[in-house]
């Protein structure tokens, strides 16, 4: 399952959704934003997405992950809107009978999400400036 939410990510809820009596392993990834980047301080962040495409892409990721690895539960949650540094913006949970599949699938999901899911982050710096973050695109 996949979801996009404006609410705080509750890791217990994320984990419960993938638990299964056939699963011996659960791997959870949480992505958070550091408050310090180089010598700049982040006050807050804003996430936006291209929703119809983001949902399709996330569903595609789940589907490909299930084809490639022997996994049972997949749960990807991305948060949008206004976040404070340290709050989780994304959670990826995978359960599987054996742990290697859960690690591999979980890592592939977050790696690919960060490449291909149309979600963008804006840094609201403590000096009052704001920057959209676009890896590879220097302003």
């Amino acid at each position, binding site marked *: 399952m996949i979801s996009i939410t404006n609410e705080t990510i509750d890791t217990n809820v994320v984990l419960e959704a993938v638990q299964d009596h056939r699963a011996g392993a659960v791997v959870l990834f949480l992505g958070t934003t550091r408050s310090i980047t180089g010598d700049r301080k982040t006050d807050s962040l804003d996430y936006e997405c291209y929703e119809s495409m983001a949902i399709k892409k996330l569903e595609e990721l789940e589907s490909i992950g299930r084809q490639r690895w022997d996994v049972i539960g997949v749960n990807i949650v991305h948060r949008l809107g206004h976040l404070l540094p340290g709050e989780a913006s994304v959670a990826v949970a995978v359960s599987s009978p054996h742990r290697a599949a859960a690690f591999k699938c979980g890592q592939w999901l977050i790696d690919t999400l*960060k490449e291909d899911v149309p979600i963008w982050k804006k840094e609201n710096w403590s000096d009052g400036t704001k920057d959209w973050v676009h890896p590879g695109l220097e302003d």
Partner: protein
Amino acid sequence: MTLHIKLFAVAMQKAGTSNLEIECSMPATIADIKHAVLERCPELDQVIPHCRFAVDDQFATDTTIVTEQSSLAIIPPVSGGT
């Protein structure tokens, strides 16, 4: 005819709109659309080379054919997941 292109993040910021209207003769490829976008909106010239285009919620290439019904978007490098 008039096409509507969704813009996000820095592309939206530089163009000053989240919904860019361009004129383009049909049928067109993404390469044609790119050209029309830059004519209409030269302030995107530093951004577009780093962006992908999406047609109907899928990434497109320069040779992808666009129809009147296509849903179009410019996808700057994404930064979700952290």
